[in-house]
């Protein structure tokens, strides 16, 4: 389990930067771009988290559903 702290920091970093981008774009009235940026950031993180959760399920399966 070497990915735990790393991946959390990565998600936090993406969140902060995307939030900044959203505010900056919002302030100059480019609301549609701001929403796209937020959406893409969210989708990216979602994929990351999905792969980790998949890892977790595999592990649970290998523990409890041993053939």
């Amino acid at each position, binding site marked *: 389990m070497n990915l735990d702290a790393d991946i959390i920091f*990565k998600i936090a*970093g*993406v969140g902060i*930067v*995307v939030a*900044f*981008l959203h505010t*900056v*774009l919002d*302030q*100059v*009235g*480019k609301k549609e771009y701001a929403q796209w940026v937020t959406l893409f950031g969210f989708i*990216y993180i979602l994929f990351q988290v999905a792969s980790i959760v998949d890892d977790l399920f595999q592990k649970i399966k290998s523990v409890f559903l041993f053939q």
Partner: protein
Amino acid sequence: MVKLIGAIFIIVATTVIGFEASRNFSERPRQLRALRSALQSLDAEIMYGHTPLHEAARRLASQMTRPFSSFFESFAGKLTNTETTVKDAWEESLKEVWKSTALKQGEFEIMKQFGETLGRHDRFSQQKHIMLTLSHLEREEADAVQAQAKYEKMVKSLGFLAGLLLIILLF
């Protein structure tokens, strides 16, 4: 270590791109002001100096800074050296110099239309045309100042933040 150097390179590159893009926004009002003062000098040369056009253009070329000095220089050169009309000489010089300015298509059209009137009327109609062009340019300048206030800072921070995001995604 190599990763860190790469990250620094990325962030420097995107920040420089952002600053370069924002320079365009700050350059445009400045150049529009220069263009307006050039037209005012041209007006003075025509109305009070009764200067021939090629000489007036040469004088303007020595007064102006880059990029417009080279514009008036090539305009004057075309008028004296080649067999051409004022309109064509004006338009060609305009096209030559336009790429090195921060100005847009709207200003190009205004200046082109002004070139079509140049040298075809008496002094007072000419002055009216200059005034018309000046008021058009003034409107463009107000536009440019507004765009500068709005987008200059955004482009700067956008460059930096895009670099940061790229680093985090690649890490």
